[in-house]
């Protein structure tokens, strides 16, 4: 059986912000309208909605159905995907598999999250549910606590000082200054990182993402239809995901096991240089994770990622979760939309002409990790 | 010096196999409380209260009772499966309805085949728990019984009671006399309806009769129980090496002891309240633990509990061989007295939830 190829033919995103005057329906409508208009696609077979917290924040189950009802798209197939913080890439994964299998031809992926409906302490509570509630969260362990333990283990293992790991947020804020869709589009000084509030020592406020609302959308199509509709189709070459062991079962906290598995699988399939030849959006929910992800992907030597931060030209051009923002279930969709624009029309003041574009996402301390490999057709 | 009896008293078939104490780490100074509420500065000294133990925000009667009971079982080196009764004497139940005893028992892996209940008689329910355990062991109904006294005592902020009302727990594992390191020689209880201190259903803090809690309540009941015990056993203060009384403050036990004819030297070794406050159901029982940890085989100890409402249990206990070795199997009261961290009134108020917060 011939396997279909999968292409991104359009993408849309809104500025991540505290959209107090808009609900998730309005946010989703904005990106859906934009991504469908001028796409040339006449009918959509499937809509995959990515959202992490609708049950907790919106008191809404079956958000994909409700959204379709509100967007006047009642005849379409739809489903919601949730894999914690990586839900956005999981939605792409589902869409990719649907087209690959021939079950669908034109698929709309929507990532939407309304985070600012409640105060921070309430969001911190529901966000903590990405961990194993019965083992971890009920025992008062939260995601930044793990990030802090990872950072301490990392500093210890490589004999580094806390001050050695302050350039990532600075770089991300700098990148976000050129991204009109970023939540935090202002620069910060290195000193500011360590004078910002401590969340879980040594993780400071400026090591982590802001809370904001966002929506992004992608329009995907099969190889059969792509030649008619897109001037610059971007191929979704591969999407992969893996799960890693729970935190207390890991002997080496300076590794992210699921991300490591994905890195080696991707290298095996597409060559050792797949990451070095790519523009990358990676999941820097806490800055320590960014350093380790760079190492897991082979972009930096172990313990030395901090040395190359300033040289990273096409990594998190968006500003990353740190500064672009992290509207949970929408984030993975943002990453792919940003990469799609980066390799086609240009994004955040830059254009990438290299071979690949890779989105990396994960949930919690790498409880699951996902990657999507994109390639612009010559 | 045992009195010769035709039929042995049933309590003499039993003894203390293990014991354990818990005192929370936080202390607040009585002077700070007194000064905050405008009490005259000599009051703490008059009551002989220097500081009191304050349970942390995540501690309560269950958690403190659990620790004390865990140590009691470890001291006794007894299989928890053989414990046939768990009693928790408390007037600060975390749940108004739902036993604390079952939580403690489950958490310690104690047999499901057991008697288990929370008991309330102000500060002496723990003493009654010991009496019940003694009776159950003596009758052969159970092999071992665990009696716990545990409280996070409440006091209305600004009430004189707040100078002393504190948190702590003690647990006693009662078993056959031959396995024990301290044998019960005799036990009596004296109770009447005397309303010296109470808390109504739904009230957050207790109410008391101030001076009325003294003469007709504390002194009358303890002295009646102790005199009954003396009569029944044919003993006098001179027969005892130590005397431990319920300690609502540091002053009362010395006064009641004096009235009964005990010299100060026999009472002081069991005094703990000036440094940890009145732990209510833990009070006399922590004092007893402190005495056991310094007693020698053959020593005779008088213990008299007191609970408002009112009543007193008087125990005559004779220390047996092996006490020293068993002391070493767990933390001593002295260790727990030294383990402390001073906190402000504000921290105490937070720990004991004296502030009104928006919750739910």
């Amino acid at each position, binding site marked *: 059986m011939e396997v279909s190829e999968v292409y991104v033919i359009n993408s849309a995103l809104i500025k991540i912000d505290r959209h107090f005057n808009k609900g998730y329906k309005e946010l989703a409508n904005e990106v859906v309208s934009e991504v469908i208009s001028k796409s040339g696609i006449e009918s959509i077979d499937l809509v995959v909605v990515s959202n992490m917290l609708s049950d907790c924040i919106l008191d809404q189950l079956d958000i994909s159905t409700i959204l379709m009802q509100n967007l006047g798209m009642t005849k379409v197939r739809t489903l919601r995907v949730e894999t914690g913080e990586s839900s956005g890439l999981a939605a792409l994964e589902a869409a990719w598999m649907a087209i690959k299998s021939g079950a669908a031809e034109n698929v709309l992926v929507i990532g939407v999250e309304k985070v600012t409906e409640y105060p921070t302490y309430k969001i911190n509570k529901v966000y903590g549910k990405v961990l194993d509630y019965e083992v971890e969260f*009920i025992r008062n*362990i939260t995601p930044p606590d793990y990030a802090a333990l990872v950072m301490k283990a990392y500093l210890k293992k490589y004999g580094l000082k806390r001050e050695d790991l302050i350039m990532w947020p600075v770089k991300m804020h700098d990148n976000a200054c050129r991204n009109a869709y970023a939540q935090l589009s202002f620069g910060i000084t290195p000193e500011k990182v360590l004078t910002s509030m401590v969340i879980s020592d040594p993780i400071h406020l400026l090591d982590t993402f802001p809370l904001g609302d966002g929506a992004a959308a992608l329009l995907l199509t099969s190889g059969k239809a792509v030649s008619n509709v897109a001037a610059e189709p971007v191929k979704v070459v591969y999407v992969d995901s893996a799960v890693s062991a729970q935190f207390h079962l890991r002997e080496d906290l300076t590794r992210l096991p699921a991300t490591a598995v994905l890195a080696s699988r991707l290298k095996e399939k597409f060559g050792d240089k797949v990451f070095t030849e790519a523009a990358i959006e990676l999941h820097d929910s806490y800055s320590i994770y960014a350093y380790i992800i760079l190492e897991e992907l082979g972009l930096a030597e172990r313990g030395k990622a901090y040395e190359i931060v300033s040289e990273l030209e096409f990594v998190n051009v968006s500003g990353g979760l740190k500064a672009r923002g992290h509207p949970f279930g929408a984030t993975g969709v943002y990453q792919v939309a940003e990469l799609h624009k980066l390799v086609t029309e240009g994004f955040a003041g830059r254009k990438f002409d290299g071979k690949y574009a890779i989105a990396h996402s994960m949930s919690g301390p790498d409880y699951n990790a996902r990657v999507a490999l994109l390639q612009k057709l010559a | 010096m045992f009195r010769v009896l035709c039929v042995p008293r049933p309590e003499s078939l039993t003894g203390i196999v293990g014991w354990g104490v818990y005192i929370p780490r936080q202390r607040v100074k009585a002077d700070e409380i007194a000064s905050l509420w405008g009490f005259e500065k000599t009051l703490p000294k008059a009551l002989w209260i220097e500081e009191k133990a304050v349970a942390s925000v995540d501690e309560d009667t269950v958690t403190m009772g659990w620790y004390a009971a865990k140590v009691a079982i470890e001291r006794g080196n007894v299989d928890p499966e053989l414990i046939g009764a768990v009693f928790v004497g408390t007037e600060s139940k975390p749940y108004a309805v739902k036993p604390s005893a079952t939580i403690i028992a489950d958490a310690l892996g104690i047999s499901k085949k057991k008697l288990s209940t929370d008991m309330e008689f102000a500060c002496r329910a723990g003493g009654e728990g010991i009496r019940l355990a003694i009776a159950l062991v003596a009758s052969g109904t159970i092999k071992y019984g665990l009696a716990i006294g545990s409280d996070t005592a409440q006091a209305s902020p600004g009430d004189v009671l707040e100078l002393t009302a504190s948190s702590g727990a003690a647990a006693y594992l009662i078993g056959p006399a031959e396995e024990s390191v301290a044998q019960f020689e005799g036990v009596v209880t004296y109770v009447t309806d005397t309303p010296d201190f109470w808390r109504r259903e739904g009230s957050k803090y207790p109410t008391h009769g101030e001076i009325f809690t003294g003469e007709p309540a504390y002194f009358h009941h303890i002295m009646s129980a102790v005199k009954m015990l003396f009569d029944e056993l044919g003993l006098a203060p001179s027969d005892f090496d130590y005397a431990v009384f319920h300690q609502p403050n540091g002053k009362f036990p010395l006064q009641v002891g004096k009235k009964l004819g005990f010299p100060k030297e026999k009472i002081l070794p069991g005094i703990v309240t000036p440094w940890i406050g009145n732990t209510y159901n833990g009070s006399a029982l922590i004092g007893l633990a402190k005495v056991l940890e310094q007693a020698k085989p053959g020593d005779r100890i008088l213990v008299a509990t007191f609970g408002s409402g009112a009543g007193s249990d008087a125990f005559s206990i004779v220390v047996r061989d092996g006490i020293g070795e068993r002391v070493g199997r767990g933390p001593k009261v002295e260790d727990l007295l030294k383990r402390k961290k001073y906190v402000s009134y504000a921290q105490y108020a937070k720990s004991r939830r004296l502030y009104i917060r928006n919750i739910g």
Partner: protein
Amino acid sequence: MKYSIPKFWRRKEGYYQIILTKCRECGKVAFFTYVRCPYCGSSNVELVKSCGRGVVEEFTISYNRVEEGEEYLPKIIAIVRLNEGVRVVGELVDIDLSEVKEGVEVEAVLRRFSSDDPHGLIYYGLKFAPVIKGA
């Protein structure tokens, strides 16, 4: 009611005591009660009780405000190496922030994880505290 009654009740042994899952297949031991070995997936596992003693390997002092957890802040989350060699992550209590360090000997103590105030259940479970002298 903020938490399911049966959900807490059925796991209480794992909260009240430190239970380890020991795999008869791969030989590894993991903290908590798993239905299968989390390392190799074998269902040939047995549950064993830990002595509840260990040593602090790493810790963080956390100010992360979580709804209904505000009273417990700041909290210390520590990685404890149990005497059985197994790692467990849990809360560390009864220690000054300035005294927390690697190598502190700790024992498991029953505390409140949280409390469903004012009408719901109190969720008890084990945290860690420095071993009391003499214990």
